[in-house]
Each structure stands twice: as C-alpha cells, then as structure tokens.
C-alpha cells in the first residue's frame, strides 16, 4: 500500500546510540518537510509490502531548510513490529513517509524558567527543547535519568549543551535527590517531563506534593501501544465487521480495512481519535479520558485502547 498523502523521504543515516536506541536522519525527497517546532512529533509511515506501520516519534532536530529531520527510536520489547522493523531492516535509503506532524508538547512561551525531566527515550522532545531554549537564552535545567550502561550514550548525545544546564543521572530520581531539587525551584518555574510510566508517576506525585499547580505542569506520555487479546469491531453505520489482531491496534485495523478513522498522536495523548462506543466494553489505555469517562465506557481512543468484550460496536 502506498500512502496517499504525506512527505516522501528516505533514511539518510542510522546511528546506533545504545543497543535499544537508534537515531534516524530522514532526508526529504522532492517536497520539503513542513516547519516543525521544538516538542513536535511526526507520524511516520514505513514497512514492507506485507506490513505497513504508522508510528509517532518525537522530532529531536530538524534543519531550518526543511530538508532533514531526525528521530530516535527505541526498540520496544512488546513491539507490534514498527520499532523492530526500523531497528532490524531500515538502512540508508529505506523509504519513509512523513504522514503528519503536530506539536502537543510545546514549552510555555511566557514562563521565566523551565525544568525539564526525562528518563530513557523520553529525552527525545527535550533534545529539541533544550537546544531551542539554549539558542533563545532562556533559563532552563534538564535532568535526565537512565541506566548506568546507557549513561555514556546520553553524555555524548547532550555534549553540545552547557554542563551547568544538563545533569545526567544513572540512578532513579528518588535516589538522585530530585524531589529536593524540585522543591528548590522558584515559583515561576514550569515543569516538563517525559519518560516511562513509572517515572511519570513519580514526577506527578512529587510535583503534587510540592504544590506545583496544573497550569505549570506539562507532560508527554509517550508509550508504544501494546497488543492484546484479538477482538472484532463492528461499524454501526455499515454493519462492517473488522477483526483486530493481537499485534495491531484498533486504529491500525480500521486503517487496514480502508476506513478513514480520525487520528493524530497515535499514542493516547491527544484525543483526536476518540469514537463513540455503542456496544461492548472498552479497555482504556489512554491519558485523555477522565476516570468518569473511562467508567462510563461510551468513548474509546482507537490508537491505544482495545476491547474487554469479544466485539465492540463503534458509531462510525
């Protein structure tokens, strides 16, 4: 299947950062990439003739002329195949389509100071943010948390930023005294964080205990939609029944069946893909719906959520 829209590109270079992290530089073919601001993600379309993938990745850098942009991809242990494809099969010249881009994680332009906290591959949006903030002369500090064996790779990755701005910890935030550092922040500081779920939970809890208000707390829950139990989705308008396999998302199943379903972030963070559930019980995995909405079960985010029941009927 050939993508009907998007910006055609090829992989210009692959850099192995750690055994699980690779940086891919994409070069535009023909039409240049749209301008991407720091914090943006792109949805990439790639794969083989047998299996196409559409995955969202944070843009770590982009040239101002729109000819190149870079993403870092972590090989997900429960990969549905996308990250494994990029790690195992992608090489220089592999075609990739930039299907869309959006910024769901900008910095607050009016903030006097920015505290950026990341763990693991959660560094990706902050690579762009830190360089932009540095270029603007803004006040910021980045704390990155990783495993000891990965520290040299992140030291290299962040080497161009001033040592006084960037701190790389090879211990968990609790052991590194991060809560104490957060408590010392001035009242004007905005807090940004991105990383695996356990890290996100720790920062959320610490921020709440220290009295950070919601207006100053910004996070991006990146996560790879995981597979699960296969089920069947029924489209109410046409009665069409579509099988959702264990290793594909509901959204992917709809797209593979030629259904024009809404979507944007493909990671349960933006809410653009929300559809009304008419029958069946959803298994919610997103960060958008409120607890009440999840309990009511009338709405589902197709990019990450699945079904508890064998069939799920959608108002589509």
């Amino acid at each position, binding site marked *: 299947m050939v993508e009907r829209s998007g910006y055609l590109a090829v992989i210009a270079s692959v850099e192995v950062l750690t055994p699980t992290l690779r940086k891919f530089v994409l070069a535009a073919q023909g039409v240049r990439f749209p301008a991407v601001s720091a914090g943006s993600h792109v949805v990439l379309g790639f794969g083989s003739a047998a299996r196409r993938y559409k995955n969202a990745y944070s843009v770590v850098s982009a040239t101002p002329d729109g000819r190149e942009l870079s993403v870092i991809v972590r090989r997900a242990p429960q990969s549905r195949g996308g990250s494994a494809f990029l790690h195992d099969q992608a090489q220089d010249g592999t075609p990739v389509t930039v299907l869309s881009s959006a910024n769901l994680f900008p910095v607050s332009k009016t903030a006097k100071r920015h505290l950026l906290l990341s763990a693991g591959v959660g560094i990706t949006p902050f690579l762009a943010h830190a360089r932009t903030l540095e270029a603007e002369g803004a006040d910021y500090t980045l704390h990155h948390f990783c495993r000891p064996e990965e520290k040299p790779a992140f030291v290299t990755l962040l080497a161009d930023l001033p040592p006084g701005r960037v701190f790389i910890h090879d211990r968990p935030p609790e052991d590194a005294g991060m809560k104490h550092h957060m408590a010392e922040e001035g*009242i*004007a500081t905005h807090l940004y964080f991105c990383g695996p779920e356990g890290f996100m939970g720790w920062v959320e809890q610490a921020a*709440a205990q220290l*009295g*950070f208000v919601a*207006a100053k707390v910004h996070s991006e829950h990146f996560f790879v939609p995981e597979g699960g139990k296969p089920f069947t989705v029924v489209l109410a308008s046409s009665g069409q029944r579509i099988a959702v396999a264990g290793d594909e998302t509901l959204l992917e199943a709809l797209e593979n069946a030629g259904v024009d379903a809404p979507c944007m972030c493909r990671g349960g963070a933006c809410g653009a893909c929300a559809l009304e559930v008419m029958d069946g019980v959803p298994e919610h995995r997103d960060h958008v719906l409120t607890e009440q909405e999840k309990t009511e079960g009338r709405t589902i985010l197709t990019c990450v959520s699945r079904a508890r029941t064998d069939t799920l009927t959608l108002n589509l």
Partner: protein
Amino acid sequence: MIVSSQLPFAPLVLDASGVRHLYVRDTADCPLPDGCGAVMPEIWTVVSDATVMADAREGEVLLRSVTALLERLAGRLARERVGLRLYGAGGASFLSRVAIVADAAGLATGEVLLAPPRDTARRVVCVHCDTLNDGVQADTVRCLGCGTTLFVREHYSRGLGAYMGVGEPEILLQAMEAAARHG
C-alpha cells in the same frame, strides 16, 4: 464559548494543594479564607497608618499603604519557591494591582486566588489618551486626560488592571462637523 477578560474572582478557600499560604488584604475587615485553622496563612494587612512599621505581629504583617504592600509582595514573590498560594481580598482596584504583581512574578492560574471585590469602583483606561481614571462607579466617565466622555466597556486589561473606556473625542467631533459644513 465566551472567554471573559475579567479576573477570576471566587470566595476564598484555603487550597490544600499549596504548601505555603500568603493572604493579602487592603483592610482588616476582610475575613480569612475558609478552611483556615490547622493551617494558617501568613497575613498582610493594609492599615493606612503612616506610623505603622512592617513588623510581623502575631503572624500578621501590617503595611502602611497599598503601595507598601505591593512593593513588599513583589520582593517576596521574586524570592518565593514553588508551592505558594497567594490569596487577595479587598477592593477591585487593590485586587487588580495584586494580580499585576503576581503575573509579573510568573504566578499562574491556581496560584493566585482573589475574593469577589468589596466595591464596584473600576479603573478605566481612555483608549484615546491612555489616561487611567480611578474609582469609576458609573458606566460613563469624563476622561481626566482629554475630557472625552468615555463609555466603560466590559473589556478588562489584566496588564493595565483597567477597563477600556471608549468615546468620541472633541477634536474628532469638531473635525467631522467641519467636514460636513464644507462638504
């Protein structure tokens, strides 16, 4: 959706998510926020008495004027750490000036809580000459700067702490009349 430009006034309740609390008021008549007791805010009160010294007295700081309080507040917020909740009570003019100081210090929604104002006097900015007219009670006011009769619009500038006043300046009326006479 209509987005109001007004300050978000609401009856004051101590916000348990804060770790330090500061309550500023332009008169001692303003009651403490609801929920005070086990947790008490630091209290700053304007007493309008030139002999007052700004010493803490039983947890309360007395200030001799609104200006003195706002200057002290700006200094305090510049050194303040995350977790403070600022509460304000008093007249509309006082509250608008507290909001300006808090905004300048980088406080955000949720960190500044303002009680419904105790008076209806508004500050009005003349869009023709930029003069600030204080204590406007009616819907119209003759501008102290250019003499234009201003109609007070429900458009509040958080930066100026004032409502927009719009009129037809005398010079404009004269020009229009002259143009009409000479065809």
